[in-house]
């Protein structure tokens, strides 16, 4: 078991945004969170990565309790969060952005070079942009940088929040392919994605969240056939 959430609740002030969430990601799985805007998907990712505190419940990451641990502890444990809106450092160069991706590890130069190479293998365009300020790149390139930066911490589990939002179809395809490639290298993925159809196609399992609670879960392929899901999320 990679990640297990047990009865997780969280609030913003008095508003309960997550209610008794039970979910899990198995090792080597792509798991997708499906739900409307404001359902609590992004919040769930933020609670996992220690940005928003959990009110109650427990997260186990490879058996280790990571509930309400500081983000640096969680990143070091092997969990990396590529947030919604990318949140890259626009004023820093691509290279500096990537360096910060492995901030929690003090790696020798050779290992850093290897990590850089593995990121370039996935996103060759970043190599030619290394000394460019990140803010001057296109949206697609910035998303690639955000994912590349997330990979620099050598995660076992990658949390991806809306990686295709606002991108051209061709770029979306590249990103989806990369996600599948990452899984084949042994990285587990928890994915939040507006493009539910595409997300379900590359996922093994999915959870459907409505107003902060999980209402349905199951194999991605089965959920694609579910009438309710078709109507609400796939527009069929």
């Amino acid at each position, binding site marked *: 078991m990679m990640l297990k959430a047990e009865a997780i609740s969280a609030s913003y002030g008095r508003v309960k945004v997550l209610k008794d969430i039970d979910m899990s990601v198995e090792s080597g799985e792509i798991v997708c969170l499906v739900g409307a805007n404001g359902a609590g998907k992004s919040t769930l990712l933020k609670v996992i990565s220690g940005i928003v505190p959990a009110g109650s419940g427990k997260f186990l990451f490879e058996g280790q309790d990571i509930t309400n641990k500081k983000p640096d502890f969680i990143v070091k444990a092997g969990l990396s969060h590529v947030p919604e809106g990318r*949140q*890259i*450092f626009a004023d*820093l160069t691509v290279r500096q952005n990537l360096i910060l991706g492995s901030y929690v590890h003090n790696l020798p130069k050779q290992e850093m070079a290897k990590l850089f190479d593995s990121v370039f293998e996935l996103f060759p365009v970043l190599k030619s942009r290394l000394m460019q300020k990140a803010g001057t790149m296109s949206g697609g390139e910035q998303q690639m940088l955000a994912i590349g*930066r997330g990979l620099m*911490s050598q995660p076992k589990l990658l949390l991806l929040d809306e990686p295709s939002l606002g991108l051209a179809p061709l770029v979306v395809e590249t990103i989806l392919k990369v996600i599948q490639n990452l899984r084949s290298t042994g990285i587990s993925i928890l994915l939040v994605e507006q493009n539910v159809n595409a997300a379900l196609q590359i996922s093994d399992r999915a959870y459907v969240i409505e107003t902060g609670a999980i209402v349905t879960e199951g194999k991605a392929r089965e959920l694609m056939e579910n009438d309710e899901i078709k109507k609400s999320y796939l527009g069929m």
Partner: protein
Amino acid sequence: MTDFSHIVQFFFSGLTSGSMYALIAVSLVIVYKVSLLICFAQGEFFVIGALAMVTLVSKGLPMPLAFVLSILISTVLGALVQRMLIKPIQNAGIGNLIVMTIAISLTLRGAALLVWGKESHILKPFSSGAPIPVLGATLQPQVLWIISITIVVLIMIWIFFEKTKLGIAMRACAENRLGASLMGISTDKAALLAWAWGSGIGALAGMAVAPLLFMQYGSGVMPMVKGFIAVSIGGLSSIVGSVVAGLLLGTVEAYTIGLISSKFSDTIVFSLLMVVLIFKPSGLFGKG
């Protein structure tokens, strides 16, 4: 009439006060970049650094040791102030935080009055030696120290913020808190470091110019104001801009004093500020 040697002499005094303003401005920018806060107590670190060095030297410590210790004292003081007075109210809103830095400024000034009294103190120059004649003007050896210290500090800051992981991480905190936190960068630690650095550099400015000025507990007020003007002209988050503006300010001031009258120097400096703010509100090197 003014002859050429005077023009050179004014240039030297402009460079001297300009370096001082530049250093103070840089210390303000460093704190601002990470905490998004102007620390109005920077003038007090300027004074405390200088007076601490005066005391240590008078106790018989060798100059280099007194120099290092005074920087250390100011750095630790800055870090303590951040931890004990700024961090507990960091979510209280920018207005409260600014008032807090003003309160810190007044408190530190009062503390300096208690420790060093009302009288002025003078530090002996970093190296002995006669003034150097240059093109008919004279250059105090201490001015060379001031300029070298400024250059060394600027190079160190550049290397730190461009080349070291910690420095880059501090910039990342300033730019995108959420992004930085997700990388496991502690924004608390970055703010603490920024204050420590800022206080140390502010103190360094005071120590460097102390042999040329009479330093007393209230001497930090005008340099702080001028440093703040330099930051406003240069652009709040631009280190290069604040250095250029600091040197510009010092030079304009020196030539105004020399060629017109010392009565007009503040008028001209503030007019310059107003012109810049009207035509480029974000400062010469600022963005947006």
